[in-house]
């Protein structure tokens, strides 16, 4: 009866071969917490599932010269238990830990959250703000791409049919540098972000911002890297005028829709509020990492 195949290859080459040779729709699965729901609800009819979890390098967190390499299928729970990662990238970890419940945290991964290509994915604005790079494997070998280039529209990525993400890299952190992620949901837990905002900053000894990245989620068809908001931070301490400028830049970057989770006006307003609040947390954290 069933036409759906499953494979859990143990080498990257086998995985790529399966994807290249697949007839019909092949889906790459890591945690599966989005994929299984889509199949159950009938929104996705796949012919082949390629489970990545037996691939070498797909799990785990390593650090070398300040650069963190994170296996694509590493679960949110594992990220939250890694003290080194949490200290260096608290915003990335808190964003990943906001995906779903404790149960979902046991399975959900950064790669799945990214490649599900929902504009509301929690980890993605934080990863973009962090300047994270995806390590992509495919028939032509390995390539790297900034996270913000992966999602091209709701449910669509820039990955080829026979490509998938093996790892992510987070760049080395200078001193007085940190990040933060905030999302707005109507409850305390279990909701999809109405708006999400990741901010990563580096400060000088006087508390003036020397580098910044700001990214928004759920306010446009894809996550938005808000350069204007980052520019509003760079060269400034977090005074009232800077906060107002960040708020305005974030709002200006929004192109949201009204749906069951929020209205256009509400989303735009909240984007500004979250950008301000996340910037404050990121500044405070960065200042504490002198």
């Amino acid at each position, binding site marked *: *009866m*069933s*036409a*759906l*195949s*499953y494979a*859990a290859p143990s080498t990257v080459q086998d995985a790529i071969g399966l994807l290249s040779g697949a007839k019909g729709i092949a889906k790459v699965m890591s*945690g*599966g*917490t989005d994929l*299984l*729901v889509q*199949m*159950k*609800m009938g929104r996705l009819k796949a012919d082949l*599932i390629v*489970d990545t*979890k037996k691939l070498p390098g797909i799990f785990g967190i390593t650090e070398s010269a300040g650069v963190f390499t994170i296996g694509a299928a590493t*679960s949110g*729970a594992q990220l939250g238990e890694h003290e080194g990662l949490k200290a260096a990238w608290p915003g990335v970890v808190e964003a990943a830990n906001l995906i*779903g*419940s*404790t*149960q*979902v945290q*046991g*399975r959900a991964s950064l790669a799945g959250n990214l490649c599900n290509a929902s504009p509301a994915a929690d980890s993605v604005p934080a990863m973009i703000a962090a300047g994270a790079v995806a390590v992509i494997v495919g028939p032509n070998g390995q390539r790297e791409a900034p996270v913000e280039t992966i999602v091209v529209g709701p449910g669509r990525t820039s990955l080829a049919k026979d490509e998938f993400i093996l790892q992510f890299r987070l760049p080395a952190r200078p001193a007085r540098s940190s990040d933060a992620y905030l999302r707005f949901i109507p409850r*305390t*837990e*279990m909701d999809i972000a109405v708006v999400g905002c990741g901010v990563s900053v580096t400060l000088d000894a006087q508390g003036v911002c020397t580098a910044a990245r700001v990214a928004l989620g759920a306010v446009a068809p894809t996550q938005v890297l808000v350069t204007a908001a980052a520019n509003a931070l760079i060269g400034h301490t977090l005074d009232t005028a800077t906060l107002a400028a960040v708020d305005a830049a974030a709002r200006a970057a929004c192109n949201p829709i009204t749906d069951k989770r929020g209205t256009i006006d509400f989303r735009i307003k909240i984007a500004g509020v979250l950008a301000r609040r996340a910037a404050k947390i990121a500044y405070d954290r960065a200042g504490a990492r002198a």
Partner: protein
Amino acid sequence: MSKHHVTATINGEPAEFLCETENTLLDALRDQLRLTGTKEGCGSGDCGACSVIVDGRLVCSCLMLAVEAEGKTIQTIEGIADGEKLHPVQQKFLEHAALQCGFCTPGFLVAAKALLDRNPDPTETEVRYWLAGNLCRCTGYDKIIRAVLDTAAEMRANA
């Protein structure tokens, strides 16, 4: 497409079953293994009634393919007690009247046990957030939270 043959350790016993690719672990537990203590409330990971522990991690069995269970160690509500001796959290749920209809109860107990396995002294806030993925519509959560906190206190006292 032939069925997958899966071998796993379930509640300390070797278990095997056959499944289709689209079957979830929840389907296999309930329909193949007749472990019906694990409940389906939503099928989308939003209610926690199907919570089980896989290789030490709390997961929703509706969000895991049955075929992925190959070689895994799985604990379900049926394996929480030590034979006829209830786990302290089961006993505390009874004493605190932390269940009304009892449908969400297996999921809460498995989730609470997973919490206490790794955090013997959780705060009320930690318990509430850990259990946020388990919906209960009867109790308003009050007595559930009290039962888990009291279990933790008793287990610490007896440790």
